C-alpha cells in the first residue's frame, strides 16, 4: 500500500473497532455532508479531466498521476463515509476500489500494454481505439472510421499484436529472430539471407490453439472470401509502410491461418527490413497485427487524395478510379482522374478518362486473376457523378477528423454500393508545398468577427458557412461541413456534431455533454461565446480557430492549409492517448438504473459508477426514515403545510429553512433552500396540481386493480414518506405520488460549474406500454430544456449540468410542473398518437428555454 493511503487505513481500523450502532447522529450527519462534498469534488475532477482532453490545456504526465491519486483519496473517503452511515454494510466497495484503481495506476506507469488482459482477436466494430499498439495503425484507423465517422467499412476482425507475440513465444522464435536481426545489423548477414531465414521459420511455425480458435469463431460463414493484410504499429500513422507488407485477397476461411503467417512473415521481407533500417527502427520491436476483412467483389475501385499534389495551393481533391480491384490504381496503371472542388457544391473541375487495359478480379477457389477490360468499358468513366459526390463527402469528413491530407482507398461493389477500404496520411514531398508563409502575417490581414471570447471545448480550426439550429426540424437540414451556431449545447444536437466543421455555442461548459461528443468527433468547439448568434448570421462564411479563440470572416485558406500540413494534430500525441485511456476507466457512467441487478459494488466498472453507487446508497440510508428516526430519536424533521397534498418531510442540513421558523410545521415561504424553493414554485403553480381524479378507462383500471404495492419499484425502500434533504443550495428529494417515484438531486451554487440537476422518474399504475409511452413523452419535454435523457422501459433519467443559478431554477420549476402534469398521465395517454397533443398543450403553457419552441 502506498504511504499516502496509510492515514485512511488507520482511520478505517479505528472505525472498525467502534460499533456502528454507537455512531451518534451528529457524526452521521457530518459524514453525510462530507460525503456530498466529496462526491461533488469527484464530479468536478472528472469534468476537469474531460476538459483536458480537448486540447486547450497543456498538461504533462504528472498531472494525470496527481489527479488519479486525488481521486483515489476521495473515493476512499467516500467509501469510509458510506460505511459509517450504513453500519459497515458496504465493505465490498474496498475490493471494488482496488479493481478499478490498480489497473488505472498500472496504466499510468505504462505497464498495461499487451498485458494478459488484452484479447487475441477483436472485431473491427468494437476495437479499443486508444490502444493502437494492440491492433496496429491500419486497423485503428478503420476502427475510428467505423465507430466515430460511421462510414461503411467491410466487416472483419483483427488478430492482435498480442496474438502475434504469443505465436512467437509458442514457437520459441523470439530469441532466434533477435539473433538474426542482430547479426544483420552488425553486417554479418545480408538482407536477403536474414529475410529468408526469418521468413522460413515464421512460415514453419504453428499458430497457437487460442488464436486458431478465435479465427474459426470469427471467420464465418463458410463461403465468404477474406482480405488478409498487415496492420503494423506505426503503419499508416507517422510512418507509412504502404505496400511493403503482404496483402492476401479472396482468402477462404480455412486458409486464413496460413495467410496470417504469410502476412507476419512479410514484416521481415528484404524491402521491409531495409525500410526499417532507413527509418532507424531496427532496435524497435516489430509489433504486427493482422487485419481480416470480408472481400468486396468490386466493379470499380481506386484512391482519393484530399490534396492535389499537382496544385497544392488549389482547394481541390483528386479521385482516381479504375475497374475491378483497386490494385491497378495502387500499382500505378493508368486510371480515371477526377479533380473536384472541396467547397460545396463540389464541382468536378476536370475529368480525364483513361484507356483501361486490364483489371483484376477474384479467381474462383481463391486468389485473383488478371483479365483484359471489355472493349465497350475501356473508354467509359469508371464512376458516375452520384458516386463521386458520396466519395467527396467521405473524403472531406475523413480529412476533417484526422486533420491531415488523406490518401483513401475505396471500392464500389457490383451492386453499386460504395465501401471505404483504408485511409492514411498522405505522404507529401516537401517540394510539392509552396514556401511556408508567415502564418501570423497572413492571418492578420483577414477581418475578425469575434476574438478572445468563450471557452475552448475542443481545439482546432474549421471553416464553413454559418448554420444556426433552434429545433429538431432544422437539425435534419444541417448541411455537412457547416459551422454550427447555437445558444445552448443541448444533447439532442448530437447527431449533427460529426457533420459540423466547427461548433460555436453561446452557453454551455467545456465539461458538458456536447463538449464530450465534440471531442469524440474532434470538431473544433467554442462554448460560452456571448452574442455569437447575433454576430454570426446564417450563410456567412467563417473560419473558426479555437486554438487562438478567433473567428475570421471568410475562408482563411492559408490558415487551413497550415493546420492541415504544418501544425501537429494533438489528438494523436501519446499523452492525449493516455489521457483518453485513463478517462475510459474513470468517466463513463454505466450504472443508470438503481433497480437493475448490476447496481452493486461488483457491477461498478468506473470511478463514476462507484460514486454514483455510493451517493445512491447514502441517500437511501437517510431516506429510510422510519428506521433512521428509530436510530436517532429527537432529530428535527420539518413538515411542509401546503395546498398541494404531498405531505413532504424536510431534513435541513443547514440554511435550507428560514431560521425564524417555529415548531415542526412550516409553510412554503419558510423554505430558503434555492432548489426546493424553485421546484415548489412549479409544483404549486396555478393549474398544475389537479386534484380531481382522472377518469380511468377499463384497461387502465384493470391494470391498477391487479397491481400489488410490492410490484411498484422501490416500494419497500421509501414506503410512505416523501422526504427532502436540503441545504441552502442543495436538495435531494424523493417523492412517491401514487405509484410514481420521483427523485431529484440538485445543486444551485453561485458558480455555474458546480451545478447540476439529476432527475429520475419511474413507475406508474398502468401497463408497461403506457408507462413507457409516458417515459418517452417526458424525455421529449426534458430534452427541450437541454437535459441529457436516458429512457429504459418506464425509467427516465435526466441530467443537466453547469448552468447558472437562475437557469437551474427555471428548470427545477419546470420539473415541479412536470411532476404535477404527469402524475396520472399514463392513464390519459392511450396511444402513441396522443403524445404530440400533450406535448403541444405543455409547451403552450410553458415556453422552453431556447428561442423557438417549435418541434
Amino acid at each position, binding site marked *: 500500500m502506498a504511504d499516502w493511503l496509510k492515514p485512511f487505513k488507520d482511520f478505517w481500523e479505528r472505525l472498525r473497532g467502534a460499533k456502528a450502532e454507537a455512531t451518534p447522529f451528529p457524526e452521521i450527519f457530518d459524514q453525510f455532508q462530507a460525503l456530498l462534498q466529496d462526491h461533488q469534488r469527484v464530479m468536478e475532477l472528472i469534468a476537469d479531466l474531460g476538459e483536458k482532453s480537448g486540447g486547450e490545456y497543456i498538461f504533462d504526465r504528472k498531472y494525470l498521476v496527481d489527479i488519479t491519486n486525488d481521486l483515489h483519496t476521495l473515493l476512499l473517503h467516500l467509501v469510509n463515509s458510506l460505511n459509517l452511515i450504513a453500519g459497515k454494510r458496504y465493505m465490498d466497495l474496498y475490493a471494488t476500489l482496488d479493481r478499478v484503481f490498480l489497473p488505472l495506476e498500472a496504466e499510468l506507469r505504462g505497464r498495461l500494454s499487451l498485458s494478459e488482459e488484452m484479447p487475441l482477436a477483436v472485431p473491427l466494430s468494437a476495437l479499443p481505439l486508444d490502444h493502437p499498439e494492440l491492433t496496429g495503425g491500419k486497423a485503428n484507423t478503420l476502427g475510428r472510421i467505423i465507430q466515430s465517422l460511421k462510414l461503411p467499412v467491410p466487416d472483419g476482425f483483427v488478430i492482435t499484436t498480442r496474438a502475434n507475440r504469443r505465436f512467437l513465444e509458442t514457437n520459441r522464435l523470439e530469441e532466434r529472430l533477435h539473433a538474426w536481426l542482430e547479426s544483420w545489423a552488425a553486417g554479418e548477414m545480408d538482407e536477403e539471407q536474414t529475410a529468408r531465414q526469418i521468413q522460413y521459420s515464421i512460415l514453419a511455425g504453428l499458430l497457437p490453439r487460442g488464436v486458431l480458435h478465435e479465427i474459426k469463431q470469427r471467420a464465418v460463414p463458410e463461403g465468404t472470401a477474406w482480405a488478409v493484410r498487415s496492420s503494423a504499429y506505426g503503419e499508416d500513422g507517422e510512418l507509412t509502410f504502404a505496400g511493403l507488407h503482404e496483402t492476401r485477397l479472396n482468402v477462404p476461411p480455412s486458409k486464413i491461418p496460413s495467410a496470417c503467417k504469410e502476412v507476419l512473415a512479410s514484416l521481415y521481407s528484404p524491402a521491409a527490413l531495409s525500410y526499417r533500417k532507413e527509418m532507424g527502427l531496427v532496435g524497435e520491436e516489430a509489433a504486427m497485427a493482422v487485419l481480416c476483412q470480408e472481400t468486396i467483389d468490386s466493379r470499380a475501385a481506386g484512391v482519393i487524395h484530399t490534396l492535389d499534389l499537382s496544385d497544392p495551393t488549389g482547394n481541390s481533391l483528386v479521385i482516381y478510379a479504375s475497374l475491378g480491384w483497386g490494385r491497378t490504381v495502387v500499382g500505378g496503371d493508368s486510371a480515371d482522374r477526377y479533380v473536384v472542388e472541396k467547397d460545396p457544391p463540389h464541382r468536378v473541375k476536370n475529368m480525364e478518362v483513361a484507356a483501361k487495359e486490364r483489371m483484376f478480379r477474384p479467381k474462383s477457389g481463391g486468389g485473383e486473376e488478371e483479365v483484359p477490360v471489355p472493349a465497350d468499358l475501356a473508354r467509359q468513366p469508371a464512376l458516375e457523378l452520384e458516386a463521386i459526390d458520396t466519395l467527396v463527402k467521405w473524403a472531406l469528413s475523413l480529412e476533417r477528423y484526422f486533420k491531415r491530407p488523406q490518401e483513401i482507398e475505396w471500392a464500389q461493389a457490383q451492386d453499386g454500393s460504395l465501401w471505404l477500404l483504408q485511409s492514411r496520411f498522405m505522404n507529401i514531398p516537401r517540394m510539392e508545398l509552396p514556401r511556408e508563409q508567415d502564418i*501570423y502575417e497572413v492571418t492578420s490581414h483577414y477581418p475578425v468577427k469575434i476574438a478572445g471570447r468563450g471557452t475552448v471545448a475542443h481545439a482546432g480550426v474549421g471553416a464553413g458557412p454559418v448554420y444556426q439550429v433552434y429545433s429538431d426540424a432544422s437539425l435534419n437540414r444541417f448541411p455537412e461541413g457547416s459551422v454550427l451556431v447555437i445558444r445552448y449545447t443541448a444533447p439532442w444536437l448530437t447527431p449533427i456534431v460529426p457533420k459540423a466543421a466547427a461548433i460555436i455555442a453561446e452557453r454551455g461548459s467545456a465539461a458538458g455533454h456536447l463538449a464530450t461528443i465534440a471531442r469524440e468527433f474532434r470538431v473544433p468547439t467554442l462554448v460560452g461565446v456571448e452574442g455569437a448568434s447575433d454576430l454570426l448570421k446564417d450563410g456567412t462564411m467563417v473560419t473558426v480557430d479555437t486554438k487562438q479563440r478567433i473567428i475570421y470572416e471568410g475562408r482563411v485558406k492559408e490558415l487551413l492549409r497550415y493546420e492541415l500540413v504544418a501544425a501537429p494534430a494533438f489528438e494523436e500525441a501519446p499523452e492525449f492517448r493516455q489521457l483518453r485511456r485513463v478517462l475510459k476507466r474513470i468517466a463513463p457512467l454505466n450504472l443508470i438504473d438503481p433497480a437493475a441487478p448490476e447496481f452493486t459494488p461488483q457491477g461498478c466498472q468506473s470511478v463514476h459508477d462507484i460514486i454514483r453507487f455510493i451517493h445512491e446508497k447514502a441517500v437511501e440510508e437517510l431516506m429510510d426514515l422510519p428506521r433512521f428516526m428509530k436510530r436517532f430519536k429527537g432529530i428535527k424533521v420539518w413538515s411542509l403545510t401546503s395546498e398541494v397534498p404531498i405531505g413532504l418531510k424536510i431534513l435541513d442540513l443547514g440554511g435550507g429553512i428560514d431560521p425564524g421558523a417555529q415548531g415542526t410545521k412550516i409553510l412554503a415561504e419558510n423554505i430558503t433552500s434555492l432548489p426546493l424553493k424553485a421546484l415548489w414554485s412549479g409544483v404549486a403553480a396555478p393549474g398544475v396540481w389537479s386534484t380531481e381524479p382522472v377518469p380511468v378507462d377499463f384497461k387502465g383500471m384493470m391494470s391498477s386493480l391487479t397491481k400489488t404495492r410490492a410490484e411498484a419499484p422501490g416500494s419497500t425502500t421509501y414506503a410512505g414518506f416523501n422526504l427532502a434533504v436540503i441545504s441552502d443550495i442543495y436538495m435531494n428529494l424523493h417523492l412517491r405520488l401514487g405509484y410514481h417515484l420521483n427523485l431529484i438531486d440538485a445543486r444551485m451554487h453561485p458558480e455555474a460549474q458546480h451545478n447540476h440537476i439529476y432527475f429520475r422518474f419511474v413507475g406508474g399504475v398502468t401497463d408497461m406500454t403506457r408507462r413507457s409511452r409516458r417515459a418517452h413523452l417526458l424525455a421529449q419535454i426534458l430534452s427541450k430544456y437541454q437535459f441529457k435523457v436516458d429512457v429504459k422501459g418506464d425509467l427516465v433519467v435526466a441530467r443537466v449540468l453547469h448552468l447558472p443559478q437562475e437557469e437551474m431554477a427555471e428548470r427545477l420549476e419546470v420539473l415541479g410542473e412536470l411532476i404535477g402534469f404527469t402524475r396520472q398521465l399514463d392513464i390519459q395517454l392511450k396511444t402513441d398518437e396522443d403524445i404530440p397533443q400533450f406535448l403541444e398543450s405543455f409547451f403552450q403553457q410553458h415556453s422552453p428555454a431556447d428561442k423557438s419552441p417549435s418541434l
Partner: protein
Amino acid sequence: MSTEKLKILVLDDEPIVCKRLAPALEKLGFEVDTFTQSLEALHQIQETNYDIIITDLKMKGVDGMRFLQEAKTKNPATEVIVITGFATLETAKESFQKGVFDFIAKPFKLSEIQEVVTKVAAKIRGAKA
C-alpha cells in the same frame, strides 16, 4: 506591430509541452525555438539573445531555477516566464525574486500563456521604443 519579430525560447523536458506551445506562439507572430534538454538550451542562450524565455523548473540536469539565473546574467533584458507542475509558494517567491515576469502552474490553458506572452511582449516593445 513592428516588423521585427520577438524571439522566444521554450524549455521543458516533456516534449508535448514544446510541441503544443511552438505553433500557438508562432501564430501570435513570435519566432520560437524549443528545447527538451536544459544543457542544449544553455548552449543556445550563449549564441542567441532571446527576448522571452519560457521554462519548466524541475528538470534533469540543469534545473530551471539555475537556467533562468544563467539566462538573466547573460542578458538581463530577457523576460522569463516559469511554467511548473510543482507550484508552491516558495518556488513562486524564489522565481519572482530572481526577476521572473510571471509564474504559471501546470496544467494551464493555451489562452492563459498566450495572454501572459502578449503582455510581456508589450512591455518589451515599450522598453525598446
